[in-house]
């Protein structure tokens, strides 16, 4: 349902239609590789039939119970895997890359429910599965299938968990959990987002309980010295929004 601001509906509707034609499928080229930024928060590399997801933070809920006695609903792993399942069913990838911090802590896999473990096994069935090392889960890969790697090269792309300012063009990373905020006429919308300057891409966190860091935070400055475009995950599609339109928290 459209419920825009009074007085501007027509202009917005017209622009919206124009936009829909232009950005139906938000595509991006990075180091010569064509990327699709999916609404689920993953990246689809059609040429490599590879789906990349970042920062799953599985078992974050149970990590809180262990550490601080806060009993958050223990369904976050299930929820994250359900979203992943949806994307896998849609793309049917030959390879899935989990771009680090797949588990919230190194002991996460031990705490996982048998049902969730089985779900991961089912997702891995018939495809290559790569766990990239993260800062939360450097030693993970025991008993959760797949293979383990520090970084992965795919055509002209380099996939690693933590983005590095020195990396050459074509880096895809996660780690920062980028979120973009748009404030307009008394309303604010804050969403997870992809961030890119055409040379590198930082992916949003995929995990149900993963928080977010505002893209206007100084942590993003060294990575994107010449500015960036954020691709915010809306309710119905992905929106490309310039740095100037994004506000701080």
């Amino acid at each position, binding site marked *: 349902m459209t419920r825009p601001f009074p007085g501007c509906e027509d202009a917005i509707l017209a622009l919206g239609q124009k936009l829909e034609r232009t950005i139906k499928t938000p595509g991006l080229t990075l180091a010569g590789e064509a990327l699709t930024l999916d609404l689920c928060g993953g990246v689809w590399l059609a040429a490599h039939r590879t789906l990349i997801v970042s920062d799953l933070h599985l078992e974050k*809920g149970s990590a809180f119970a262990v550490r601080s006695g806060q009993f*958050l609903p223990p369904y976050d792993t299930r929820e994250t895997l359900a979203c992943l399942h949806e994307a896998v069913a849609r793309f049917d990838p030959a390879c899935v890359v989990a771009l680090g911090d797949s588990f919230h802590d190194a002991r996460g896999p031990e705490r996982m429910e048998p049902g969730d473990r089985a779900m991961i096994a089912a997702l891995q069935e018939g495809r290559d599965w790569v766990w990239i090392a993260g800062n939360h889960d450097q030693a993970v890969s025991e008993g959760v299938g797949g293979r383990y790697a520090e970084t992965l090269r795919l055509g002209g792309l380099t996939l690693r968990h933590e983005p590095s300012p020195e990396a050459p063009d074509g880096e895809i990373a996660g780690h920062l959990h980028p979120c973009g905020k748009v404030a307009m006429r*008394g309303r604010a919308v804050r969403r997870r987002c992809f961030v890119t300057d055409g040379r590198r891409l930082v992916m949003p966190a995929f995990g149900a*309980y993963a928080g977010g860091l505002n893209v206007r935070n100084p942590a993003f400055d060294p990575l994107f010295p010449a500015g960036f475009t954020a691709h915010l995950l809306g309710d119905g599609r992905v929106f490309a*929004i310039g740095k100037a339109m994004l506000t701080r928290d």
Partner: protein
Amino acid sequence: MPEGSLPARFEAWFASRGWAPRPHQVELLRIVGDGRSALLVAPTGAGKTLAGFLPSLVALSERAPSRRARGLHTLYISPLKALAVDIARNLEAPIAEMGLPIRVETRTGDTPSHKRTRQIERPPDILLTTPEQLALLIAHREASDLFANLSCVVLDELHALVTSKRGDLLSLGLARLHRLSPGLTAIGLSATVREPDDLRRYLVPQGSRPTEERGSPLLEGEGQGEVRGLSGEVTHLTPTLSFQERERRGVHDAVAPEPTPMADLVVVKGGAAPDLHMLETGLTLPLAGHTASQAMPAIYDLIQAHRTVLVFVNTRLQAEYTFQELWRINEASLPIALHHGSLDASQRRRVEAAMAAGQLRAIVCTATLDLGIDWGDVDLVVNIGAPKGASRIMQRIGRANHRMDEPSKAYLVPGNRFEILECQAALDAVEAAAQDTPDARLGAPDVLAQHVLGMACADAFDPLRLYDEIVSAAPYATLSWEDFEAVVDYVATGGYALRAYERFAKILRGPDGLWRVRDARIAQQYRMNVGTIVESAKVKVRLARGVRGKPGAILPKGGRVLGEIEEDFADTLTPGDTFLFAGEVLRFEGLSEDEALATRAGPGTDPAIPSYAGAKFPLSTFLAARVRALIADPFEWDRLPKQVADYLLLQRQRSILPGPEGLLVETFPRSGRHYLTAFPFEGRLAHQTLGMLLTRRMERARLRPLGFAANDYGIAVWMTRDVSEAIAREPGFLAELFAEDMLGDDLEAWLDESSMMKRTFRQCAVIAGLIERRHPGQKKTGRQVTMSTDLVYDVLRKHQPDHLLLRAARQDAATGLLDVARLGMMLRRIQGRITHKALDRVSPLSVSVMLEIGREKVYGEGADEILAEAEAQLLEEALG
């Protein structure tokens, strides 16, 4: 008054003051002397507080001297910590003057820890405190010793306490006190309420039946309610006892057994009738807006003609605006101050002190001064805007003149023509002494969860005994055993179907069947998170200094803190936005480490950002019905100012008048759009919920709704398709559109996504201890809590939609932010009573709600529209 009912020492003290004990004070003394509980309903100035303490003072004065500590005798609970401190001061006079051997102390959040420890070891005779402190005291390991000899508990401003979750918490504390000290008498002090019986039940244990401590037979004398009037005649009610046993242990009747035990009732009839008027300026009022700008000169004249005036408004924005306007015309430079909840606490204290010292001529204030201490010599109350409720307005009027035999003087100032109707309805209600205080609450599950953990901290508990104790608290009288078990399960391991946290359980059941708290850390966690008031996350507003010669540049630090704004509001500000705060127009410069930096805007700058959250009360059902009746009956119109009567007459000529019970729906085209307006008069909250649901349904009917706006009286929806034509084509269309079943799936679907629901959930999660409360100096900011509860909410509702906390949030939504219950009542009321009028242009009545369009932001949940607009700008850059 019976002679000799007071000890000689007290008689002499009264006489030395030139006073005589009032009949209700003596009456309360007699009832409590008989070991019964009582509710005292009296207007301000009736000596209510002294009446509440007199039984304790007399009993303590007659006690034989003893060298050993005797434990707490009387506990006094007030909703305001400042009130507790003030009462302690007031008690000192009679105690000192009569030379009574009585020690009185207060215990609040400000009490130093060594004093708290000493209060447990060597308790005073009388302790004055707040509901939160009571919760902490009964969760103390020494609680059973501390309260073993408690003889009396006095609950002040009970009418204000029982309407919230604080009242739920207090009821559970009271139930524990009744158990720790079986002979305890409870005294409730209250302003006039609609249903005093609700409060009478609140004071005494419900569903009484033999328990181990009390033994059989049942509680002699309890429930022998008496009703007394000031004149002295006493009406005895038939002794009523709840004999209805639950059929077997653990199963509770869904409906409270009738009749139920009640405390005695003592009513002091109101003193002099208030001297209450609507302020007539002779000017034509607008059809919308609440600022009452036209009335400012008249209000200023009133301030000049009185000693001290309290100017009440409904929102903080209105307070800021009124304060500015009054100073604009303050040629005599009268000391006029501002008081509202967002101002810095030290600034508020300064205003209160100046007022008490009689240095102020007027204070513009919000509900923050509704309750509390008698600051200074107020001789006039002015209420700007709609009164919203008859009882609320009476409470405010009572703030003027605290001598009950003199009339309180007050003016109601309407801001628009509808508010004239509401003011008239309120005047009628006050004259008829009609009350519209809310119904008794159903106890909230999240509060119960907090209490259960607290009880485990106090001592190991037997679940059956604790259940019996909890259902003796009136708000929880209908709690089923299954629901209680669910709460215990929640406290232990989170209450999840997926048993993930058994290993970490907070409370554990031992082989003896008793539940115990796991360790000291959990008990500490409980103490840090006690209470039901969940403040919305706030950020400080700091005045930033500009850099000389560099317009626009600011120094990040240095200025003083002006107060706090809700984070939700701060989130919507972009640098350069101007807004009203602390009596000034400020320019937002940016956020720095969780502080909003602002500079003073240049003179003559208009605030651009319309509003920020503040108290907004819905129109009470009772006043709404009176307004509807007033509109529907032209014979009543001669009591209204001519401009309103003319306006209603015009509505009758152009369209029709809404009836007293039914719903008027108008449809009309306007500049290429089609509009539907409806007038349920159920308050803005209920209308906003209605708007969300109606637009969903219209979307399905392919009417292409584009937006809606709502005010307290009605709602307007606009769309691209011709709605008049759709209604003409299908006879049942409107009935179906407004059918009650919209509260089913549509409501569920919308609620789940609603940001208000998420906020409600967050409050429940904090109260129930799922999320830890923030504390000053703690690293975890409110921002993080807000974010993570949203994520938690989304996950929980997908995977366990019937979880205790989601049920708690829905129970809150029914009555709170979303007013769903009221919407349901309205939909039932209008079945078969919808009157439709197709018009070729907007009617006078519809103009009022149409004026809200663009003024109030639409509560749209459509984040994508905002994002699309931001995206469009990037595209324009690219194309341009």
